[in-house]
């Protein structure tokens, strides 16, 4: 019957496809991005952040970076609080990505100071020795094109003042990208909640053990030297040649970071290696 009537066949085939389409693609609009999803602290992008987001899209950053943290133990430990629907209400298009050649960026906002991002974007391997990220130095040499900014904000329905538009003068594309990155995940007060609560006494398992110093030095070179300098004398971060604090206190700073000071948390190194770093740093103290 349908094998002999092409139009009947087309109608039946369309109907077969529409069932799943309506249930799994059309219906969800009833539940998603509604009041129930709303997170009060999540705000729309500023003109600078939105321009940065558009450059992120233009350069195809989403081909290597995801922007959604899954509710899995290791993932929450590595990146922070898992993603909620309401966080993305202003994202057009969404940028969740599908491949992590580089790390997830959903929680990158506030993790590093601006200077870290500026240097890293210009020459990734200078910060992360074996990174395979392309260098985006040229973004710093291009002034931001603001020709469509107002229209963009109108289309998206985001608030936008004349002062904000005027404030874009003299900004380059890299400034915009960094502004966007610093916005990611910073709307939600998740960092304070996620502060690792260490159970029990913090005691240095390597107390007085100088055999781990070499490994600690290797870790320092790989993770710390970019901000504190090869000789601990400071650069983006402060001079740490004469740290005068207890092992447990230093461990807490390394493990949890100092968000307000721009020091990232290094909990992803695991406790063992953080202790080795503590040993190395304490060993450098000049008496």
């Amino acid at each position, binding site marked *: 019957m349908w094998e002999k009537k092409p139009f009947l066949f087309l109608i039946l085939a369309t109907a077969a496809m529409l069932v799943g389409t309506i249930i799994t693609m059309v219906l969800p*609009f009833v539940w998603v991005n509604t009041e129930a999803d709303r997170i009060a602290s999540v705000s729309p992008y500023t003109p600078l952040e939105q321009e940065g987001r558009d450059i992120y899209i233009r350069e195809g950053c989403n081909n290597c970076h995801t922007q959604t943290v899954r509710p899995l133990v290791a993932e929450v430990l590595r990146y922070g609080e898992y993603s909620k629907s309401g966080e993305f209400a202003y994202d057009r298009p969404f940028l969740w990505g599908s491949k992590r050649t580089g790390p997830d960026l959903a929680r990158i906002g506030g993790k590093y100071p601006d200077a870290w991002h500026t240097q890293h974007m210009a020459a990734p391997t200078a910060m992360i020795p074996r990174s395979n990220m392309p260098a985006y130095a040229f973004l710093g040499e291009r002034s931001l094109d603001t020709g469509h900014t107002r229209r963009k904000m109108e289309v998206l329905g985001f608030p936008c003042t004349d002062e904000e538009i005027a404030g874009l003068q003299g900004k380059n594309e890299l400034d915009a990208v960094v502004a966007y990155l610093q916005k990611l995940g910073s709307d939600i007060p998740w960092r304070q909640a996620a502060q690792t609560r260490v159970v029990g006494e913090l005691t240095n398992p390597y107390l007085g053990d100088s055999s781990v110093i070499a490994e600690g030095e290797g870790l320092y070179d790989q993770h710390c030297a970019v901000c504190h300098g090869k000789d601990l004398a400071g650069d983006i971060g402060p001079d740490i040649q004469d740290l005068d604090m207890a092992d447990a206190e230093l461990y807490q700073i390394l493990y949890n970071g100092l968000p307000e000071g721009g020091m990232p948390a290094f909990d992803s190194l695991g406790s063992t290696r953080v202790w080795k770093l503590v040993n190395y740093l304490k060993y450098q103290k000049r008496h």
Partner: protein
Amino acid sequence: MDKPVYNHAIVRSFVAWSVVWGLVAVLVGVIVSFQMVLPELNFPPYLTFGRLRPIHTNAGIYGWGVGTIFAMFLYIVQRLCRVPLWSDKLATFQLWFFNITIAASAVTLLLGYTTSKEYHEMEWPIDVMVVILWVAFSINIIMTIVKRKEEQMYISLWYMLASIVGVAILYLVNSAAVPVSLFKSYSAFAGTNDANVQWWFGHNAVAMALTAPPLAMFYYFLPKSTGVPIYSHRLSIISFWSLIFMYLWTGAHHLLWTPVPDWIQTLAMAFSVMLIAPSWGSVFNGYLSMNGQWHQMRENYLVKFLILGITFYGLQTLQGPMQAIRSFSAFIHYTDWIPGHIHMGTLGWVSLIAFAGIYYLLPRIYGREVYSIPLANLHFWLVLIGQLIYSVSLWIAGVQQAGMWHSMENDGSLTYSFMETMIEMYPYWWARAVGGVIYLLGLGVFIYNLILTVRKGKPSDDAVGQTA
């Protein structure tokens, strides 16, 4: 009975152009695979991984995949309907407009005009072109079927028609956007909704562009190549309807563990597992058609391509549902396993069937025998080895990286930083790049064989009446 005069000129042109775009796709693919291991091969602003990768995927899916589909459909529809194309002019327009659209896509993507939506990166002016192109193609196929002399519509035509409708629905919905300027638009949907629409599109583009059309080719070329009919018509019917019904439910298996509502994820997972049945219906139909014909694997190089192709389809449709299971997805998603999976489908399934189709067509559209069967066999082994090195190295890479990502110390802290897991990927990425180069060599042998067939092939008696 008079033999109708079929339009073979248009098929020749589409074959030639799809092969050109296929070469572009693999070439760019090899370039980006080397950029993964040697970041200094990125030349900003235009030639960075972020801008080249969409060119690779779109040239592959639309230039090579859809280009071949156009060639094969325009050929098959005339044969199965026993009438010439409804409109030669429309087909010629379709050819040139197709090439203009693909070229415009490549240029605009290089310039950074992208929507960021995977497999749908082209900005809205290109979307408009794609719609015009698809309408022209659809009208021609449907009208040819309406005017047919063969009462029965064969299996290949069902898949063809389904793909025509499916692609139209998917593409239109996912391209909904508000233009800001000529090359910038914002998606009509926001956040989680946009993600859900995108992957409903993204996954079903695989269904309607990379599954149904190659199946249409398989169901036509396998019996044509072996000389024996398809094993079971009933199995084809059941497989077809269940496939197109179930596929549309599974988009959210790309979004497991994201903020997309849980019930959609669960439905996607359940339907993904169920999809094994219709997929394997076609695989069994292919295998059982070979009953008593397996010696042809040795004697007939076309059968090798077709049977290996359907075998990869079978492997792909087991691996896909496996990845759609929540716990497995939690482990493997976002790693290199995923490109390993998709390349088994594109390099193994879609391309092997397309190669077989083109080899089969050569005598019939050029009136010349294939220049060299040993070269066709060499081509077969090169693309097979290249693809296996590619996929297997990335599966291992994916398992290793996932293991490292999820590894924890006794005190509940993470064992590895992200960079430590990434550095471990380099050897596998090198292997992948080498696999890509071997595949490219195979493609080179294929193109050489094509050119010499056209120039020097022995005249064949398969040639049929041709329009100017």
